[in-house]
């Protein structure tokens, strides 16, 4: 197996004034050349996990566990070391593109400045590289875009500028937080074609946070499912979408509107996600789970255990005390 680019090892993050940890013993890895999906409930901690890989934690956070990028502990690293890692090793495409860019600077400055500062390239060389990157993410008239301001670009154009920026330093690990949510599907395909090429040619490792189950199924090698700060299921993409086992994952797949067939009312997972101000004694999903059983599910936190029945193969694991009794809806979920 390839060396891990990212190793999150039992990461727990607690914020002041909350009843449960934001992240609770999260363990995940991304190897070189691997595309790993992270899906899950809104507020379950996906972005906090990805940001931790950049050495960023919410203010006031207390943490336990480790986050290794290229073997180096980023949560213990000093500012200088972090800057160096972010320049060469790991970069991130943030969820809200407009929040990550200075509105009064031109696109060209945003893209060339890091190259000029960290690589000491001259303006001309940095601009050539920026044009190349913008063309690679499918922006028309890349030279012209360099002179424009963020507000002059559409949402999807700006999102692609952010992706170009994240690729500028040729990172080995790319963290993509909903990178294509604002993109139409054909532009999305163009971005994923580019990332796929980098993955094959340069062994880029990719952590792809997405709520788009179909996209994760079509692009990821492995997928982790998060709920209320915990990993509740992990498997290869084929396994997870073919034979989901955790009740939350099953509910998630059932909530996706289909593109074909009779349009029936959607059946979302009932209830609302559990907030940071609520703590559950046992399984955090119990209040919404159709299979919840008093006396079992509310006793202790279900551990993420490997599935032992042959068909599940290596690596499929789920955190549910009633796994053996819950049928995987396999075919009904994904026709």
């Amino acid at each position, binding site marked *: 197996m390839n060396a891990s680019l990212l190793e999150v090892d039992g990461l727990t993050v607690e914020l002041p004034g909350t009843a449960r940890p934001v992240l609770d013993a999260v363990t995940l890895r991304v190897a070189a050349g691997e595309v790993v999906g992270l899906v899950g409930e809104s507020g379950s901690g996906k972005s906090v996990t990805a940001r931790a890989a950049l050495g960023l934690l919410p203010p006031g956070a207390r943490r336990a566990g480790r986050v290794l990028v290229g073997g180096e502990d980023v949560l213990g690293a000093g500012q200088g070391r972090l800057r160096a890692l972010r320049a060469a090793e790991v970069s991130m495409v943030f969820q809200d593109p407009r*929040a990550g860019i200075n509105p009064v600077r031109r696109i060209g400055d945003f893209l060339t400045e890091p190259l000029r500062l960290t690589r000491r390239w001259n303006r001309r060389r940095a601009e050539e590289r920026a044009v190349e990157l913008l063309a690679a993410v499918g922006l028309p008239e890349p030279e012209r875009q360099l002179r424009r301001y963020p507000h002059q670009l559409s949402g999807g154009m700006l999102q692609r500028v952010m992706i170009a920026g994240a690729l500028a330093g040729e990172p080995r690990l790319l963290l993509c937080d909903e990178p294509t949510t604002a993109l139409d599907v*054909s532009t999305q395909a163009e971005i994923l074609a580019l990332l796929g090429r980098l993955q094959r040619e340069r062994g880029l490792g990719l952590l792809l946070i997405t709520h788009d189950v179909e996209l994760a199924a079509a692009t990821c090698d492995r997928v982790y499912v998060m709920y209320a700060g915990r990993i509740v299921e992990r498997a290869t993409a084929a396994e997870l979408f073919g034979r989901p086992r955790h009740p939350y994952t099953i509910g998630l797949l059932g909530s996706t509107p289909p*593109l074909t067939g009779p*349009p029936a009312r959607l059946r979302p997972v009932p209830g609302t996600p559990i907030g940071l101000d609520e703590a559950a004694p046992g399984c955090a999903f119990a209040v919404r789970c159709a299979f919840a059983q008093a006396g079992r599910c509310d006793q202790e936190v279900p551990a993420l255990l490997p599935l032992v029945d042959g068909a599940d193969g290596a690596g499929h694991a789920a955190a549910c005390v009633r796994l053996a009794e819950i049928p995987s809806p396999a075919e009904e979920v994904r026709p």
Partner: protein
Amino acid sequence: MTPLLEVTGLRKAYGPTLAVDGVSFSLPPGGALGLVGESGSGKTTTARMLVGLERPDSGSISVLGRPLAPAVHGRAARLARAKAVQMVYQDPYLSLDARLTIGETLDGVLRLHGHHDRSARAARVREVLAQVGLGDREAAAHPRRLSGGQRQRAAIARALAVEPAVLVLDEAVSALDVSVQAQVLNLLTDVRREAGIGLVFVSHDLAVVRYVCDEALVLWQGRPVEHRPLPELLAGPEHPYTRLLLASVPHPGWDPGGIARRRRALSELVPGERPD
């Protein structure tokens, strides 16, 4: 019956960029129109003109038979405008005030729209937030302290609190995970049916558009290229871009490289020339 929204011949250019050209449609009470198209095709620009954030170069917009004034002056006119059309942006930070908690923002909106009783307002704030799956902790939080999807739901709640005639959503459910998204989509179909609110729904997700809308208008390089009921559009897309759009939906065996090549070939066509 007077249409809720009547739009004719909208056009908007930014210098050399013709962002929107020749967009017309009409929306009956409780109607829902999907606006789809590739990145940069003019969807947000169209939406911004509908809420009066952008002045069209030509064309007209009327809500309930009354032309939307090009500029609004005074508090009463502003409130009437807000009540006519509300928009939820792609970027939730635009709908929310970073200095206020979510609860304060919603309370302010209700106060502005003439809800004077403090405790009734508090109850209404809770009710609207509950509709989008947010509770007391989120109500007490500032936007920065929420997850992306929580922020987006807060922005939707803010727009719904105004009880507008027309709600324009610009990729507003794209960032939501599917189980929360399903709740919001059901909520949108309910406000359509029960309150007769009209929806203009910008989304790249055709399955979602099919779920929420009756018909869709496909934009390509600022121009409408197809405007048909959804079942028809999905069963027999006519314009090459619409066909590409359908082929691009992720599915097993999806080939992003092939789609990217088709997309580039299409974009090299001269704008205005009808490809085939």
